[in-house]
């Protein structure tokens, strides 16, 4: 089929750019906010953005994340900014447990609400579908039904008590993807996983990307757009913004740095002195951070060594 050429809009109509700085984006997270954190395990964590939030330090946060979460969630928990967390699974996958999440669960410093994939997704889907609660088929027989407010049995639709998580609508959603244009059209080169769901359920959506592309580039492959601009409020250009996690299709996760994080995390004190201070509070995001972790070229080369 012959394609008609695209025609650009008249210069008279100037579309508003959604590009903001990392610190402007981080400022959208205010004390007491309900924050959705994107990514899964080591993939597509909004790492630079979360570090910037930690530098700013808004407290009393409630967070929700994709069922398998990792670095960004553990960092937020370790920073002491989190009061309540709806997180089904937080680990460093095959590298080990998430040290701050584990410690928070053992000491009770954070309200870790017991939940699983179905209860988290159900709560987010309830928002999308305008339901007060979204029943999930069954987590029958488990202790979740005993301990989790998300899974509290409820009589919905006359079928007797069934776990029915209430609708969750985060105030701010923090995501990392590979590419976007300045109007918020976002493209994932890997797996978007729960990020679109988190975005649709949230009031405000911020996306960091490794690379800003032109609107024409987005329009050249409309099927590849994962989040259309109407879902996105702010875009930040943040090269290597997922590090030490992977930005799928651009760079892999940095096992050396992740292991250093885990090692630092052996106590709350060592995590603060060996990770939080040198890698977050004591360094600016961007070139300084990149230099501190060995530079861009090293990250680009990880593909060869990370198994």
């Amino acid at each position, binding site marked *: *089929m012959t*394609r*008609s*050429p*695209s*025609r*650009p*809009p*008249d210069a*008279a*109509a*100037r*579309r*508003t750019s959604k590009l903001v700085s990392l610190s402007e984006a981080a400022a959208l997270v205010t004390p007491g906010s309900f924050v959705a954190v994107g990514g899964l395990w080591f993939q597509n964590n909004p790492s630079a953005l979360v570090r910037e939030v930690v530098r700013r330090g808004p407290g009393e946060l409630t967070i929700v994340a994709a069922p398998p979460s990792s670095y960004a969630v553990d960092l937020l928990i370790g920073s002491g900014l989190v009061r309540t967390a709806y997180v089904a699974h937080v680990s460093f996958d095959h590298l080990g447990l998430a040290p701050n999440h584990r410690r928070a669960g053992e000491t009770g410093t954070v309200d870790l609400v017991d939940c699983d994939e179905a209860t988290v997704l159900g709560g987010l889907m309830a*928002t*999308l*579908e*305008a339901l007060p609660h979204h029943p999930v088929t069954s987590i029958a027989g488990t202790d979740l039904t005993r301990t989790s407010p998300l899974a509290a049995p409820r009589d919905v639709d006359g079928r007797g008590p069934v776990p029915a998580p209430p609708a969750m609508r985060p105030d701010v959603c923090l995501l990392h993807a590979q590419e976007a244009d300045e*109007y918020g*059209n976002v493209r994932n080169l890997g797996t978007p996983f729960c990020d679109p769901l988190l975005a*649709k359920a949230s009031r405000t959506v911020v996306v960091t990307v490794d690379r800003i592309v032109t*609107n024409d580039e*987005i*329009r*050249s492959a*409309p*099927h590849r*757009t994962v989040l*259309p*601009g*109407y879902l996105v409020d702010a875009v930040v250009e943040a090269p290597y913004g997922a590090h030490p996690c992977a930005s799928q299709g651009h760079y892999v996760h940095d096992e050396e740095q992740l292991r250093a994080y885990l090692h630092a995390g052996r106590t709350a004190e060592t995590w603060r002195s060996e990770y939080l201070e040198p890698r977050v509070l004591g360094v600016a995001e961007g070139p300084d951070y990149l230099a501190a972790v060995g530079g861009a070229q090293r990250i680009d080369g990880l593909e060869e060594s990370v198994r």
Partner: protein
Amino acid sequence: MTSVETQTGTAEAGPGSGISYSPDELMTVVMAREIRNDDLAVTGASSLVPVAACLLAQQLHAPDMTLILPSGVVNPRPGRLYRSASDGRWVTGAEAVGTGYDLFEMSENGRLSVMFYGGVQLDRHGNVNLHGTGYRDGRPSFRGPGLANTSFAVVSGRIILFSAHHTRRTFVDRVEFLTAAGHLDGGDSRARAGITTDGPVCCITPLVTFGLDDGAMTVRSIHPGVDPETVIDRTGFALPTAPPWPVTAGPTPDELDVLRRVVDPTGELAR
């Protein structure tokens, strides 16, 4: 450029100008002026005019507005108009391609700010009937296409009504079947039904623009060159105000220029 419905084909385009335009071009320009920069709009069936109006508004005063076609295509820019809003050729050069589930989310989750409705019948309170007419024992003697998205009328921030046909058959006192909620019985009956959105704010026809400020259609303006008696004759309910009515500002040369040069270079609206 001619029409059995209006005489606007030879009307003035602006002070001192003598540009002619078709009824569809006039309706498109008038509708475009209703679009706001922060709008997220979805169009339906037989929507050449609403689609063109959104694309024109994006070019003129609403570059940030989002247009979503009924097939889920987001912000198309095909370089011309296609007569079917679901035509696959709208995909090329668009910003994204959504699914039915995305449309469901967009409406139920409260994002949709403008919806356009035409109808087999539109009544004076802006209610829409796409179901049928001439009911006997619940069965219509004329069956319409049915309404694809009734609930969008409830969840959409506001509604823009339009009809290519300004006749007594279309503009009735009361729809025989209420498929999409306008202002129901008028007054505050929409709010009393628990609906929190604005409902129909105007209705654009080849003859006039109706306002619905008090939940009932009133002539906001009559299009250039149209005889008020024609409007009265062809409207199936009593108009609340008598002529003279304000005259619709016709398309400006700039509006027509952008419409014809950028939005509709193949002249689909001029036919």
